[in-house]
């Protein structure tokens, strides 16, 4: 099944760029014969460029020219231009880009209302064209940040649009949330306005924050430079690394962090692309992890962060991988799922791991985790035979857990601080289509969401009374 990706805004495109690079690296490692197969087709079209320009799609046989199934959208040209001049330039053609020059000024209203309106037709047309090339479109991915103007505003506009145009196709959103010390003053406004859209129109959201990514990068840095591991670490196995991809120039500061997100997206789709003894497709993730429509925020964690060069992995190390997935150090957002309430949990394992390893670890970890009363065995599992580059095995854990609540509460608090003083509101309100009620509705939507999590948390330590069963007349 095929997915279409939308990288919106500066952050979205920078992450997107790393994603395409690492995707090519992964497929090159697996697909030695250069045949265009089903796995590749979930991310790339195979285009016959011999006749120059945009030839017809080739569905089988050798790889000719791979084109990413994506739209790159930015209201500034800097990042997209860099991509087009870099080693990935052949992966995109001009029809996949929507750019402007002046940016959105960190203003959600500019992104959503102004540019949304302006570019709607353009986006719809390009979306339809790109979708036409997909023989079985299953999923849309949006990658963006919440704190700015384009990613946040135009990104959520695209989300709405996707629901209108293709209501049956799943919408997964990877959102980078601003941290407390974000240097964009209006980021709370942008984020809360965007949250309303995510609440109402996304099927699944994977929230990420820079602080967590930064901590993971630091941790890896520490481990590899401390001399304890030194040269025994496989460089290309670092979840932050670009080794082996097309990047030959000096790595930019955010690359390591963005690689983590790129790896998240690769692992998420691995079981849909590659074979395994227990497949887990994207529509299964949404089905199993979203028990109520609005509770669709999934906390993700990736392990291991790096691999040592020794090939023989005793099961103790394997078990460590499972334990790490539940530790707060490995979460991609500042959250502690272990001490909050699990609503549902998914484990996607890659590599040489069998069902008994999976079961042993679930049994081992279960007692220390709190699951909601009606989902005591709420585990969704997948086994994919193909490990990521540089690893013999890996684990992606997705948790629908009330531990996201603090993030949302903090966001609301920061929003209220500004809103009470009406700080910077005029920048938003003078945009056509923007009214005070937009703000009121947005914060109300967020409050309702927080309340839903509160209600679940309230059940956490309560007594468990099972509902009485149906009685049958004998």
């Amino acid at each position, binding site marked *: *099944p095929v997915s279409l990706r939308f990288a919106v805004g500066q952050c979205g495109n920078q992450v997107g760029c790393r994603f395409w690079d690492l995707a090519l690296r992964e497929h090159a490692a697996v697909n030695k014969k250069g045949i265009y197969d*089903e796995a590749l087709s979930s991310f790339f079209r195979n285009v016959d460029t011999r006749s120059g320009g945009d030839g017809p799609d080739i569905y089988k046989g050798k790889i000719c020219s791979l084109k990413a199934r994506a739209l790159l959208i930015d209201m500034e040209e800097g990042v997209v231009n860099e991509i087009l001049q870099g080693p990935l330039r052949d992966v995109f053609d001009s029809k996949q880009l929507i750019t402007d020059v002046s940016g959105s000024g960190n203003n959600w209203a500019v992104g959503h209302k102004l540019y949304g309106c302006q570019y709607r037709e353009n986006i719809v047309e390009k979306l339809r064209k790109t979708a036409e090339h997909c*023989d*079985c479109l*299953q999923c849309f991915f949006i990658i963006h940040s919440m704190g700015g103007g384009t990613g946040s505003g135009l990104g959520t506009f695209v989300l709405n649009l996707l629901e209108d145009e293709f209501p049956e196709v799943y919408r997964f959103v990877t959102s980078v949330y601003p941290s407390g010390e974000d240097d964009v003053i209006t980021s709370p406004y942008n984020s809360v306005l965007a949250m309303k859209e995510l609440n109402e129109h996304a099927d699944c959201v994977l929230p990420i924050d820079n602080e967590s990514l930064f901590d993971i990068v630091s941790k890896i840095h520490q481990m590899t430079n401390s001399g304890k591991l030194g040269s025994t670490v496989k460089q290309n196995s670092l979840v932050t690394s670009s080794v082996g991809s097309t990047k030959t120039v000096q790595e930019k500061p955010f690359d390591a962090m963005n690689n983590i997100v790129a790896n998240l997206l690769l692992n998420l789709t691995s079981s849909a692309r*590659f*074979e395994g*003894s*227990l*497949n887990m*497709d994207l*529509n*299964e993730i*949404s*089905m*199993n*992890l*979203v*028990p*109520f*429509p609005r509770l669709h925020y999934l906390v993700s964690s990736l392990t291991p962060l790096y691999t040592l060069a020794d090939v023989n992995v005793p*099961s103790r190390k394997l078990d460590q991988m499972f334990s790490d997935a539940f530790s707060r150090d490995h979460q991609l957002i500042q959250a502690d799922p272990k001490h909050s309430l699990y609503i*549902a949990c998914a484990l996607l394992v890659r590599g040489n791991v*069998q*069902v*008994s*390893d999976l*079961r042993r670890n*679930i*049994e081992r970890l*279960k007692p220390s985790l709190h699951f909601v*009363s*009606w*989902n*005591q*065995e*709420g*585990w*969704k*599992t997948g*086994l994919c035979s193909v490990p990521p580059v540089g690893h013999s095995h890996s684990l992606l854990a997705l948790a629908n857990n009330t531990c996201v609540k603090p993030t949302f509460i903090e966001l609301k608090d920061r929003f209220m601080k500004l809103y009470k003083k009406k700080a910077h509101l005029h920048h938003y309100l003078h945009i056509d289509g923007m009214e005070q009620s937009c703000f009121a509705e947005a914060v109300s939507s967020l409050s309702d969401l927080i309340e839903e999590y509160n209600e679940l948390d309230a059940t956490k330590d309560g007594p468990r009374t*099972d*509902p009485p*069963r*149906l*009685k*049958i007349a*004998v």
Partner: protein
Amino acid sequence: MSIVTVQLGQCGNQIGHEVFNAVCADVHGTHGLCSKKENESYRDACKERFFREEESEVPVARAVLVDMEPKVISQTLSIAARSGCWKYDDRSHFCQKQGSGNNWANGYSVHGPRHKEAIMNLVQKEAEKCDRLGGFFTIMSMAGGTGSGLGAFVTQCLRDAFPTSFILNHVIWPYGTGEVIVQNYNSVLTLSHLYQSSDALLVHENDVIHKICAQLMNIKQISFRDVNQVIAHQLGSVFQPSYTAEGGSCYSRNPLGDLMETLVPHPEFKMLGLRNIPQMPENSLAYSTFSWPGLLKHLRQMLIANAKMEEGIDWQVQPPRLGFSIPSSHPTNKPLHFNTSIANLVVLRGKDTHSVDLGSFRDPSLYTSWLNPQDAFNAWKTPRAFNKYEKSASLVSNSQFLLKPLDNVVGKAWNMFASKAYIHQYTKFGIEEEDFLDSFTALEQVISSYTLL
């Protein structure tokens, strides 16, 4: 007579493949321990039952492969072809690209009607290639979306299109602690629907087979392949050719019909459990000898005490003492944990089967009072050893074996239903709360019926 196998979803296709492997390997094995003539008879009967000959020398499995995504079928087809021993018909499969998303409603209400014609065409073609159609064997898991939802729909279609054919559903129960979060919903919907169209449900529980792999087969890192191979062995031990009549001169040609006749006297009671003894790692076989009395003693106690395997049997459990005029519907008079049977079938394969004493299985205290003890118990035999086991005995039982597991699944599903969790995912595809309630009611009825035995 031939059986057409319908492999549904990832689980169904992975297991189906192992079943044909096991059956083929058994037929070509050199450990038959019987005369050449017997061996040839066996081989011919097996071939007719499961395979057909085509222009290619390799026998072709009588199977239809169905899945809503392509990876598993593609793998299954190629691995089978590489075996050199048998293969699938390249055209006898149907797949889509999207999968069912573990959503029973998607499998049943969307994929089912949409692809009914294409799938039933394939089934029709396979059925027509049988000189005589003995019935259908469908393999599916209850936990996911395709095997369970589409599987239930296809079973219904089979019943409509072949009203007089036997349909046996082989149903895999998922691990208790999650493979799929909504597995209990999917299970409840599957079982209630299958009950309406199927003749019998033959059940394997992943947890049980996993234990067998760990404790009896000594496998350290157990994979799904290991689990599936044990299941295939157990199925083969029942469905490979055998003599169903005492003093029969040729292998039974109607295994499904014989099975239904002996085990399913009443449509309210369709849940069949399977036990097989002995079970051990292949490299231990050469060093082990078995006696029929020993094997049967264990098998009988496994039946009475509802033991899942030959280790850890509770020898304390005994059948109730007859001779008291207490109606058998009084559950309080039954000893705790005693497993009441409606009907049982024992299949014996290997050395000296002709002289085996099965009297202990005919004990009326094992059974409900509706059938004569001689009707409640049947035995099939063959001197031809199965899969390198010098002696092997299998038990297919219509008893309270599955009562507790069924009750567990329904309980968990009900608990989740009370909170309305995930219901929106099903209503999106046309299965409403009312449909859930109907399914719950149907299964509570089945539970109640089995409890009162």
